[in-house]
């Protein structure tokens, strides 16, 4: 399944931050988004994932092909590792809990409450959720925050495995995951002079003497 983004403009708080973003992400490939803080990586990823409407342009893959993971892991502190994963597996209608636990090296921690996990372990559990969704396109926002080197390597393996099975990955990150991926610099797509979205300018841009 190919993810195609066409002339996309995204807005944060009513102000367009990126415009004219176009790329195609074929099955089995990866794309890394780069750019300084505040340029709108998170906004772009949320728009691609269907959490907010695009200011202009289109995202071709339906939201039902995309699994999204952000800074917050959506873990429930009072549930165990297995319970957390089993919930998402049930929501997505898959049975991949054991496989996901093994892949993210969580088998030893399976009966521990999420509240008693370290930050890195929580992050691994959050990423294990991607494996139980069974969705082909992963949209990841800074997935390696609070992971140590070994866990980053582990996660890199998981992403490579996903790509080798025909999945694709759109990822915003500052570090090298050791995966084969193209890089998209977002700098050139910064909206010109912090302009308002065009519809808003047409409405509120005039002379209100």
């Amino acid at each position, binding site marked *: 399944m190919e993810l195609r983004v066409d002339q996309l403009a995204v807005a944060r708080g009513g102000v367009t931050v990126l415009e004219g973003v176009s790329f195609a992400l074929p099955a089995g490939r990866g794309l890394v988004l780069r750019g300084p803080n505040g340029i709108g990586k998170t906004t772009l990823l949320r728009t691609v994932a*269907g959490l*907010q409407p695009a200011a202009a342009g289109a995202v071709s893959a339906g939201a039902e092909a995309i699994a999204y993971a952000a800074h917050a892991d*959506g873990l429930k502190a009072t*549930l165990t590792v297995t319970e957390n994963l089993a919930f998402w597996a049930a929501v997505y209608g898959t049975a991949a809990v054991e496989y996901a636990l093994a892949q993210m090296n969580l088998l030893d921690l399976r009966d521990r409450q999420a509240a008693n996990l370290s930050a890195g372990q929580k992050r691994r559990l959050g990423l294990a959720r991607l494996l139980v969704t069974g969705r082909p396109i992963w949209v990841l926002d800074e997935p390696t925050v609070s992971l140590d080197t070994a866990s980053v390597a582990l996660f890199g393996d998981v992403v490579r495995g996903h790509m080798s099975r025909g999945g694709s990955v759109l990822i915003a990150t500052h570090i090298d995951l050791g995966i084969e991926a193209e890089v998209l610099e977002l700098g050139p797509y910064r909206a010109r002079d912090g302009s308002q979205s065009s519809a808003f300018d047409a409405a509120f841009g005039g002379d209100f003497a």
Partner: protein
Amino acid sequence: MIALLVRDMRLAMRAGGGFGLGLAFFLLVAVLVPLGVGPNSALLAKIAPGILWVGALLACLLSLDRLFALDFEDGSLDLLVTAPIPLEGAVAIKALAHWLVTGLPLTLIAPVLGVLLNLPEAGYFWLVVSLALGTPALSVIGAFGAALTVGLKRGGLLLSLLVLPLYVPTLIFGAEVVKRGADGMATATPLALLAAITAGVAALLPFASAAAIRINLR
């Protein structure tokens, strides 16, 4: 869907506090009112239906601000919106879970508090019936208020201001059923209206709540 219900129930049980707090509040209302209005049992019997309904309503309100806020803070609301279950369904399920951990226990404990307030004997049956029929509406309407205020700091107070006026019809018909039941009058009309409100809000409001959540997450 069932997984969501099971998860929410499990969370409510393990968090401990939220489950008992509403009940304790309800109990406090039933204890404080007689202390405030005096021990005259005829007066208490007269106002018991209203006090019990207002107490149940406020107890319901207590835990509403956590209904979506917890999921919003830890990011699982984002994940639920992108999950393959319709958000309207998820909202309805979460309201159902809220009812199971607040409305249902309130309904079951209400007769005991009726004793404290000298509720006439004929009223107990109607108290349980009206709360069982009416409290689901309180949870569903409350879920709408929680959806409107999900991303806000200090949402709790605003939530009460938004939700309490919406509770007026449910409160009026619910308390009316008990009042008439206690007086030995026919209860069919207010009971039917109460059931109609519950059915109507359960069918329609989740759509508005889901829309509000989507707006708040953008």
